[in-house]
């Protein structure tokens, strides 16, 4: 790995030692961006977006529900991307990135389910319907939990990285299959009586609120993943000299 350091810049940052300080510098930046975007997004969601003509105020759940659902799916794709890179190029950092992203993705997945249930009660009359989207989201949560459980169960770091990567890729191949099969099953069983996102004319202000919140979720995810990957790097590289130096520095700071 270290042989290609000078050839290409990205390879240089693929080394955990080189990435650690970069992550440390970037994480607070993204944290600030997340904070600012969340503030703006919440302000739009609650004070700018008008009351919905059909649903009343309940629809304001959309400003976290949809970004959380998007984020949970996207994070899984990013994890699959890092897993593929990790398997193909044998870089340690990629697997660590996937592992750092998983808990945040699972959290967003749960948030999407929870807010979906709370939104479903007043609009559909039930906390849970076996709607294609909700059901796929639930299965996605199981995939996240499976990944995290597998990674937690393996002690050997090399095996942990690679087994997690394979599971992540297998899951990613299956996500579209699961989605379409559930959708098919759903239309067979209860018809298209439930439609969640087909708001006929979503006001621009609502859309912009949703987008701002989505970007906030992005920034939050990046920031948390960077903070988490720093801890993972320290744990993984504990035998390296630079980690000792870093730990000594942290010890003084505490």
């Amino acid at each position, binding site marked *: 790995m270290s042989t290609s350091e000078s050839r290409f810049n990205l390879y240089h940052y693929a080394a955990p030692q080189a990435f650690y300080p970069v992550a440390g510098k970037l994480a607070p930046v993204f944290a600030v961006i997340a904070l600012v975007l969340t503030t703006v997004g919440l302000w739009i969601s609650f004070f700018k977006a008008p009351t919905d003509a059909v649903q009343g105020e309940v629809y304001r759940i959309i400003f976290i529900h949809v970004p959380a659902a998007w984020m949970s799916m996207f994070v899984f794709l990013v994890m699959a991307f890092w897993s593929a890179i990790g398997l193909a190029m044998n870089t340690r950092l990629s697997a660590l990135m996937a592992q750092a992203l998983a808990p945040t993705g699972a959290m967003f997945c749960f948030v999407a389910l929870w807010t979906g249930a709370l939104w479903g009660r007043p609009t559909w009359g039930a906390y849970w319907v076996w709607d294609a989207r909700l059901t796929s989201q639930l299965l996605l949560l199981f995939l996240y939990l499976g990944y995290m459980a597998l990674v937690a169960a393996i002690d050997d770091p090399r095996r942990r990285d690679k087994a997690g990567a394979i599971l992540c890729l297998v899951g990613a191949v299956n996500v579209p299959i699961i989605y379409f099969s559930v959708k098919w099953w759903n239309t067979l069983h209860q018809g298209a009586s439930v439609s969640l996102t087909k708001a006929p004319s979503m006001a621009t202000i609502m859309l912009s609120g949703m987008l701002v919140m989505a970007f906030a979720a992005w920034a939050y995810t990046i920031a948390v993943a960077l903070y988490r990957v720093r*801890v993972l790097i320290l744990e993984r590289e504990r035998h390296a000299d630079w980690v000792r130096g870093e730990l000594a520095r942290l010890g003084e700071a505490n």
Partner: protein
Amino acid sequence: MIWESWNAFLEMGGAAQFVWGSYGVTVLLIVAELVLLRSRRVHSTRRLSRLIRAGQGRKLPEVQGS
């Protein structure tokens, strides 16, 4: 300003439990994630420092980076 009063804002047109239930749990989960992350960081740096101090006299097993 689309809200007539703070109370109207808090009532959310009668959907307070659903809207605030959603936002509340989201905030709770985010705070929980951050607290867990922080405690993991503190614990693992302490543990690693202890390990290194304990192994200072002896030579640590030679583990080549990868």
